[in-house]
C-alpha cells in the first residue's frame, strides 16, 4: 500500500514542489491549503506523515499541531514542520511541540525527500510498480456527461476492446461510483454545469481511494480556454468531441500505462518483427515510438541482429507510415541491426514510388525477408 503524505500549506507553489519531489516514489501526496482542511483530511485519510507549514491564514501550524496531538487517532502521526523562519525562538517553540523534524525554507526537494525518508519507508515507484495491465485486459471507463449520446458514441467506438463503458450524468453520481472502486479512468465533460468536471476532479483528489484515478476532460475542439484550464488543473489529458475512438484508445493507454507493445512487436528466433496495423493513426506512431528503442535493445541483448517490418496489413504507402519506418530503420542501424520489409507486390510498388524507400529490401514472406538478410 502506498505511503500517504499530507502537505498542509497555503502556498500552492510549495504544495506543487512537495508533490513533484515525491513523484518518483510509490506514495500518495494529499493536499490541504489551510489548517482546518488539513485536520479534516488527516482525520479522514490517516496519513503516514504530515508536512505542515508554520505560517498560514485561518489556522496556523502551531494550532494544527496542538489539535493533532489532542486527537487520539492522530497524535502519533509524525509531523515535519516547514517554516521560512529559522530564528532561535521559533525553532525552540517548534521543538517543544514535539514535531519529528523541521525544515527551513528555502529547501531543496532532495532534502525534503531525505527527511521524510527518515520517518517512512519510501520506495521508488518503478521498483514498486506492479505488472502493467495490457491493452486487451478489461478496464472500466466512467463517462461523466449529461448527454447520453456521448456515452453511446464512446461505447460504440470501443466495442472492439474488452473495455467496459459506464455513464454518470452528474458529478456527484460519478464520485459515488469512483468511491465504490472498480473505475480505472474517468472521462468528464468540461461543459458540465457549475464547473462540474473541475469540482469532480478536486473531490476525487481529496480521497485516498480515488486520488490516483486519471481524469480526462472532454470538450469541443474550439473550446481553447476550457482545454487550457483543464491542463492547468490536473486533468490527465483532454480529448475533443466528436470523439475519435483511435485517439481515445491511445490516450487511455497512455494515462493508464497499458502495455501495448505486443500489438506491434514480436521476437521470432532472434529477429524483431515490427507489424504495422491496417488502422494506421497518429496513436500508432506514438505507441510504436514509445516501445521501439527498448524492443531493439532487447533484440540486440538477446543476440539478434535483424529487424523485419511487416507491411502486410498496411493499406496504403502514406507519408506517416514511411516516416515511422524510416525512424525505425535509423534506430535499428544505430544498434547495427539490419532491416528488411515484408509486403504484397501491390504495397511494394506503392512504396517504391517514393524516393525515400528506394534502398528498402522487400520480400513476400517473413522467411524470404530473413533470407535476404543472411
Amino acid at each position, binding site marked *: 500500500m502506498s505511503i500517504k503524505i499530507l502537505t498542509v500549506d497555503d*502556498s500552492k507553489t*510549495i504544495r506543487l514542489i512537495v508533490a*513533484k519531489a515525491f513523484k518518483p516514489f510509490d506514495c500518495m501526496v494529499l493536499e490541504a491549503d489551510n489548517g482546518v482542511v488539513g485536520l479534516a483530511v488527516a482525520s479522514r485519510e490517516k496519513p503516514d506523515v504530515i508536512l505542515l507549514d508554520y505560517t498560514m491564514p485561518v489556522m496556523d501550524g502551531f494550532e494544527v499541531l496542538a489539535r493533532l496531538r489532542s486527537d487520539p487517532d492522530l497524535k502519533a502521526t509524525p509531523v515535519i514542520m516547514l517554516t*521560512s*523562519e529559522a*530564528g*532561535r525562538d521559533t525553532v525552540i517553540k517548534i521543538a517543544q511541540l514535539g514535531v519529528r523534524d523541521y525544515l527551513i*525554507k*528555502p529547501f531543496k526537494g532532495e532534502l525534503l525527500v531525505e527527511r521524510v525518508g527518515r520517518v517512512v519507508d519510501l520506495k521508488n515507484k518503478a521498483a514498486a510498480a506492479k505488472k502493467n495491465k495490457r491493452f486487451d485486459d478489461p478496464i472500466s471507463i466512467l463517462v461523466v456527461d449529461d448527454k447520453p449520446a456521448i456515452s453511446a458514441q464512446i461505447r460504440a467506438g470501443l466495442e472492439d476492446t474488452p473495455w467496459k463503458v459506464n455513464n454518470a450524468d452528474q458529478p456527484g453520481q460519478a464520485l459515488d461510483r469512483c468511491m465504490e472502486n472498480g473505475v480505472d479512468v474517468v472521462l468528464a465533460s468540461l461543459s458540465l454545469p457549475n464547473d462540474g468536471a473541475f469540482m469532480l476532479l478536486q473531490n476525487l483528489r481529496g480521497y485516498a481511494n480515488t486520488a490516483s484515478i486519471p481524469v480526462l476532460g472532454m470538450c469541443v475542439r474550439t473550446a481553447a480556454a476550457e482545454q487550457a484550464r483543464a491542463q492547468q488543473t490536473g486533468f490527465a489529458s483532454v480529448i475533443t468531441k466528436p470523439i475519435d475512438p483511435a485517439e481515445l484508445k491511445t490516450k487511455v493507454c497512455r494515462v493508464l500505462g497499458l502495455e501495448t507493445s505486443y500489438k506491434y512487436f514480436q521476437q521470432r528466433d532472434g529477429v524483431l518483427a515490427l507489424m504495422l496495423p491496417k488502422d494506421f493513426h497518429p496513436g500508432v506512431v506514438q505507441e510504436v515510438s514509445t516501445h521501439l528503442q527498448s524492443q531493439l535493445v532487447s533484440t540486440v541483448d538477446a543476440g539478434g541482429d535483424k529487424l523485419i517490418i511487416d507491411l502486410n496489413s498496411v493499406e496504403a504507402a502514406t507519408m506517416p507510415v514511411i516516416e515511422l519506418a524510416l525512424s525505425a530503420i535509423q534506430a535499428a542501424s544505430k544498434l547495427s541491426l539490419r532491416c528488411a520489409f515484408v509486403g504484397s507486390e501491390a504495397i511494394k510498388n506503392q512504396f517504391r514510388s517514393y524516393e525515400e524507400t528506394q534502398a528498402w529490401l522487400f520480400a513476400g514472406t517473413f522467411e524470404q525477408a530473413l533470407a535476404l538478410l543472411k
Partner: protein
Amino acid sequence: MTREAVKEVFQSMLSMEVNPEPPNPLTADPDGQIIGSVGFIGDATGIICLYAGAGFARVITSRLLGIPEEEVDAEEMVPDAIGELSNMVAGYVKSRLCDRGLPCTLTIPSVVRGQQLSVECSGQVTTRAIGFHNCKHHLLAEVLLKDSTAKEV
C-alpha cells in the same frame, strides 16, 4: 542581510545565481512588473519587496515548480510563486533579526502587478535597495525600515 537572503533563496530553490548590481527601476519589461512584499512588525518593523519584470517572474516560477515556461499560468502560478519567494526572503531576514535580539512577526505575503509600480510608506522610513541580475534578467530587492529599526540594523 537582504543580499544574502536573496542569493540564498535563489540558489536553493531555483539553482540560480543572482549577482548584485546597482539598483535600477525595472521599466524595461513591456508586459509589466510584479512585486512580492512581506512585512515584519515587532522590535524590528518594515517591509521587504521583491520587484521583477513579468518575463523574469515567469522564468522564476518555471524554475521553482520545475515545469516548462509555456506551462506557467501567469494568472495563478506566478503571483503565488513570487509571494512564496518573498516570504522565504523575509523569513531569512526575520530569523537574523530575531537572532540579533529584534523579535518580530511576519505578515502574509502580498503581490501586486502592473506597470511602473513602486511601494512607498508614510511616516519615517529608510529605504534600502539592492539590484540583482541573472544574465539578461534583473531583480530589485527593496527594504523599507521604520527609522527606529534602521538605526539598529
